[in-house]
């Protein structure tokens, strides 16, 4: 009787490879969210420019599907795995089985709690939450009345952005309501509509991603509450357009395609025998209409 991950693969010297020889396995948490679509394009474009092959699987936001998908990639004999975990804890065994198959792993956007990871590339979500809170204070002052729209319950992005936001907001803002709209635009709309019914006096809204922010925007607009400050997270195209148009006030922009590119760079560094840092921060930027 043995456990998967017990037998460790050859952990010797890295066999140097040129980009053309490398097959990258990519496991994305869900392609239904454009954010990750961009992340995937970042990886594919960077890899193709250099002649590498990418095989990608989509976990459709399900942890078990992701583990299966990673197994399938291992079966295909990929040289390296780029994993964007659905969940930081549940990905551990998959990373361990990659470890035992001797395949190096890089995680993107969300970290892994266990297993050996070459490097982790992400924006600092806690910091992003703090940035959003600071921006709101800057715009409407301390003790402003704020509503937070949370992401998918339990997702690390939800927890971390929430954590960062409360770090600042608990002391300096008046948080009226904090409800989940599942990172989803239409739920952002209805949840915001309902919150408006019992809180007509709102100064600002922090949505943990742009999709929800855009939904909330529609709700506020149809209630005639156009002067409420709305801050999103991600910096996706729709959000940037709305900022341009002056409807959305700000977004904490991540650069998913950049994350993808950085990951591919790290792959090449690794296979040419260079040292790879254990964490690489992807740039995070507050974009406003100023």
């Amino acid at each position, binding site marked *: 009787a043995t456990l998967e991950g017990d037998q460790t693969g050859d952990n010797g010297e890295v066999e140097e490879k040129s980009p053309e020889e490398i097959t990258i396995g990519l496991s994305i948490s869900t*392609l*239904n*969210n*454009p954010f990750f*679509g961009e992340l995937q394009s970042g990886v594919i474009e960077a890899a193709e420019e250099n002649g590498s092959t990418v095989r990608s699987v989509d976990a459709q936001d399900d942890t078990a599907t992701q583990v299966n998908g990673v197994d399938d990639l291992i079966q295909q004999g990929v040289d390296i795995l780029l994993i964007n975990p659905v969940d930081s804890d549940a990905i551990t065994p998959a990373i361990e089985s990659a470890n035992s198959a001797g395949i190096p792993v890089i995680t993107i956007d969300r970290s892994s709690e266990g297993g050996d990871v070459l490097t982790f590339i992400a924006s600092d979500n806690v910091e992003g939450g703090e940035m959003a809170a600071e921006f709101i204070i800057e715009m409407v002052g301390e003790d402003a009345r704020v509503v937070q729209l949370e992401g998918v*319950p339990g997702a690390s992005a939800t927890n971390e952005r929430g954590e960062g936001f409360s770090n600042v907001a608990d002391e300096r803002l008046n948080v009226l*309501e904090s*409800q*989940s709209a599942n990172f*989803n*635009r*239409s739920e952002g*709309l*209805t*949840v915001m*509509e*309902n*919150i*408006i*019914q*019992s809180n007509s006096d709102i100064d600002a809204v922090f949505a943990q991603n742009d*999709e929800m922010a*855009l*939904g909330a925007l*529609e709700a506020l607009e*149809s*209630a005639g509450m156009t002067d409420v400050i709305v801050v999103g997270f991600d910096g996706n*195209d*729709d959000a940037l*357009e709305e900022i341009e148009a002056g409807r959305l006030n700000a977004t904490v922009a991540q650069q998913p395609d950049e994350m993808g590119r950085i990951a591919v760079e790290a792959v090449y560094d690794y296979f040419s025998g260079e040292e790879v840092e254990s964490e690489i921060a992807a740039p995070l930027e507050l974009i406003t209409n100023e």
Partner: protein
Amino acid sequence: MDNKNTAIARKKEKRSELYRKLGPAIALVVLVLIVTVMNTNFIQPTNLLNLLRQVSINALIAFGMTFVIITGGIDLSVGSTLALSSALTAGIIAAGVPALLAIFIGLLIGAFLGLINGLLITKGNVAPFIGTLATMTIYRGLTLVYTQGNPITGFGGGFAFQFFGRGYLFGIPFPVIITTIAFIILFVVLHKMTFGRKTFAIGGNEQAAYIAGIKSDRVKMMVYAISGMMSALAGLILASRLNSAQPTAGTAYELDAIAAVVIGGTSLAGGKGRIVGTLIGALIIGTLNNGLNLLGVSSFYQQVVRGVVIIIAVLLDRKK
């Protein structure tokens, strides 16, 4: 004696019929009272209009689902149909087709997707559950393929398209008006026209209906087409409201729609049902969602409460 007995039986039947009709309505009134007592904001006209607008999406889908369920079928593909038809419509509008024409085409797309379900079920002889389960996956996949997983936004459509989901007429949200019109039309079709009679007959005893000369395949195909069209209509309203067509829109909407139909007293076994009940069912679910938000119940508990209320509503209905 025969006459006396049947007269009594008839009275009894009438009474239980009355309960059956009023059961869901009473549940709704009780629910409204409870929520109002706990938060008077609920009963404000603005919230009620808001509530109605929110309900309209589910109500429209559930109206179509009522027809399907009365024939003894089920349509799990409504959410995916909603997504695919609104994505395609957004694409059509972006390609420069005038909004009204595009909306019309969008509804036809929905009806066409429904027709495919109908064909699978009648000509292919596939069980409705499994046939629409398959198309649910297929239509969702096609939506993702078409949109590449990205929402379609800024496709335009001008005032006409924006008004569709976001407009007001005499102070009433336009989606509410659309839902009202759809309700009236479908009510008439189901309860006042021969088509509705045939729908019921098929659900009551398909074999007997067929032998009586009713073209059951044709009626069923129509019924699934109606369901598809209603889903498309809901999808267009949603796209207009969100100002974008979302590839993942409508996920799991089939469950809310089926719940509305069943809470409204329509039997999953077919042959028995009322579209008024479905409207009430949709209002119950909507009130619940809206009310729980208003009362600030955490979203985790909301799910528990929602499930419990569905059970209570159905149990009350059983108690004739």
